[in-house]
């Protein structure tokens, strides 16, 4: 198995693309579940960038950070989905545009 055989800037570009997609989703979607998904995409993009960088420097650190991001994502999603349940119960909708009692 070879090392990094792929132009790194292209991997990073892919990561950037995915990151932008995630942000786009965040800005676009009202459904909190989709927002969480966008978040996952963004975290994933960051993880991809780390792994690519790690591969470039032939270090394990990149993958370890990926691992940590993974656990972060898991924890966030766990709490996030718990919130989703509550939101559905209390607001009777997942539409975050409806949840704007706090403003001004």
């Amino acid at each position, binding site marked *: 198995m*070879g090392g990094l055989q792929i132009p790194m800037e292209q991997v990073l570009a892919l990561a950037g693309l995915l990151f932008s997609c995630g942000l786009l989703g965040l800005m676009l979607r009202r459904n909190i579940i989709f927002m969480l998904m966008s978040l996952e995409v963004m975290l994933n993009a960051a993880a991809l960038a780390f792994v690519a960088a790690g591969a470039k420097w032939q270090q394990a650190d990149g993958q*370890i950070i990926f691992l940590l991001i993974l656990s972060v994502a898991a924890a966030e999603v766990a*709490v996030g989905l718990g919130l989703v349940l509550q939101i559905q119960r209390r607001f009777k909708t997942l539409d975050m545009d409806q949840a704007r009692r706090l403003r001004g």
Partner: protein
Amino acid sequence: MRKRGGAIMMEMLFYIAAAVALLATVLALSRANAAHALIYLIVSLLAVAVVFFLMGAPFAAALEIVIYAGAIMVLFVFVIMMLNVGREGTAREREWLGGRNWIAPGILSALLLLELMLALRHAPAVTSGVAVTPKEVGLTLFGPYVLAVEIASMLLLAGLVGAYHLGRRFIVRRERRR
């Protein structure tokens, strides 16, 4: 020559995986139906796993599939099933997704992308190297990063307790309702 041919093949594979990842992500985020979106997202994650593999990070690729695509996405599936977001919800989502809503976010994302690409213009060129083996990862993880593992455990504990507290009420209420 072989090596070069392998490289070309790898490159091709990478492009395919990247395209799949990108396309699946876009589709995932533009679906009205949450379950469909989730499937696309999983596809995207799998494609990224392929990229990991191509970059010589098999351990990461495996974890991506097992934990990300497997465990975390299943959580989503649970919630979607539990909430039973019906047809109306889907219809509403579809309605929202059209038209003007795209303009500002689209422009902003495009700008951001442009800026990122500008920044990456001068990114380092291709390097060839050796794959980072799982063993190496493991050694590093429990070497210098041992405290990170410990803290990560606390992080997961926090996620666990939080999820428990938030989800519990929902479950309790549901049971009471029955």
